[in-house]
């Protein structure tokens, strides 16, 4: 018998980060009475999906004992996630009402 399988914990953590990020973004937009434009929606959704994929690949590779593959997936998938997030956030910040 395996003592405890922690696999659920890592997927819970991914859900927590995505959920917390979405709630924060929703509050952020609501306070400033802003709405996302279509390409910002696409960038946020794509980066979220890629983040889930990265999480699964990282956890799965660790489970397979392929540690190098786990960290290389952070590099290969982390870069597009970062670029998409930077793009979406820069677009959002450019539309922020000036103080």
């Amino acid at each position, binding site marked *: *018998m*395996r*003592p*405890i399988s*922690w696999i659920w914990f890592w997927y819970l*953590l991914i859900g927590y980060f995505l959920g917390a990020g979405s709630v924060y973004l929703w509050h952020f937009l609501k306070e400033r009475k802003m709405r996302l434009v279509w390409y910002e929606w696409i960038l946020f959704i794509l980066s979220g999906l890629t983040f889930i*994929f990265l999480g*699964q*690949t990282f*956890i*799965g*590779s*660790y*489970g*397979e*004992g*392929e*540690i*190098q*593959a786990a960290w*290389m*997936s952070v590099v290969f998938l982390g870069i597009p996630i970062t670029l998409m997030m930077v793009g979406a956030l820069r677009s959002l910040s450019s539309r922020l009402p000036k103080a």
Partner: protein
Amino acid sequence: MTKRSKRFYHSTVSRRDFMRFLGMGTFVAAGGKLINGPFKDLDEMMASPMAERKLPFWVKEVDEPTVQIDWENMEIYPHMGMTLFNPNSWGGEEGIKQWMEIQKRNIDSTTEAVRNNVPGQSLKDHALADAQCWGWGPTSIEPSWTGPNLEPNPMWEHPTMLWGPEDFGVPKYEGTPEENSRMLRVAGRILGAADMGFVKLDERTKKLLYGDIIFEDVEKGYEDPERHVKVLPNKDLWVICALIPQALNQYGYRRSWGNSNTAAYSRAGIYSNRIKVFLNGLGYQHYGGGTAAVGRAVGFGVMAGLAEYGRPGIMVSPQYGTNFRTVMLTITDLPLAVTKPIDAGIMNFCRACKKCAEMCPSGAISTSKEPQWADWADGEKPWQAKGIKGWYLDAKKCYSYMLGGEPDCNMCQAVCPFSKFDQAVMHDLVRMSISSTPALNGILRKLDDVFGYGKERGTDMWDLDPMDIPLFGLDTSRS
């Protein structure tokens, strides 16, 4: 940090390191303390005697079992024959009479269930139970051409064990070829076949049988040791091709022989016996034996669609890569729906990949880009049958290397980009790409290297947490 955890294998220790890395160690330790007070942190938990067996934290080790035992008055069984399964233990003539009556009731009720096709107790269910029974008691692991020949043990608590349709007074099992194939797939998974395909013996596929197998106008096949031939009846016959998986050597040294191919060979023998007992229980003929009894395993496997022909001269499966030991072949007259060969882009990928050839320590695997027809003279390489346009393994080089000082070698299987554990969904995306976009094959091969697949990690299997090793060494996420 322990010596083992430095090796970063997927043990509980490395998970702990992983948790620490994410700054979650404190959280988990706090959770552990709330639930299970004695441990302050994971280090303490790991250092406890419990850690040796890695029991769940809610399971305590105790000095005495939870059942009360009176050691002073503990009776000793005189011998095995006095257990309840033996009539001697039922107490004198009256007890034996009672035991015999129970046996008769068992026979009557089982026969009635089989005759009435009761779900879970039908002829095919009984045949599967019989098949699983093989190996219980003295037996040889190498089945004969028409065997194994098993005699029911009258002392068994299931007196109808190894009964066939005739014993039950029912006709042999009947189903459509599609139903039969599906039934065999289900039985195959239970009996040890990772995947299964079916080939009908016709003028073409008969050429994949060994030359000492001949056909005669007889009702039932037999083996003739004097003529050194095995005889099959001239009738419609199908070959059941079963993929026998092997451990991926993921947790030991890539070329270690302790956990991989030898174990798969013995499982192949067990499967072969059991599938034959299953067919026997259904009332059908079965022919075959050990791993080298019928014919070309790769040829039948490719024709059955279990895999494609690959660069190392062996099969490459889309799900298992090269990581299986053999295709066990069993010939039967049970009508089956044949399975077609497959194209998952593997042969195309082998053109670009060459990883197995580059890593092969004996240089036995071809490095030429394109597959070729055999160009040697007849009889020059008696161990290598000609007839395909492929990459021919120089089997003599391979075998000489293994016998000439290197005790074993699974390198070509371990490094094949298709040979992966299957927990990361990324592997499926890569396979989809290989199947649909061959232009990316070269890049995917390079990425396989960059991601560190196929590298020798030097993990010593003996240092691992036993619970981190899949049962029989097989990847439970896929096998």
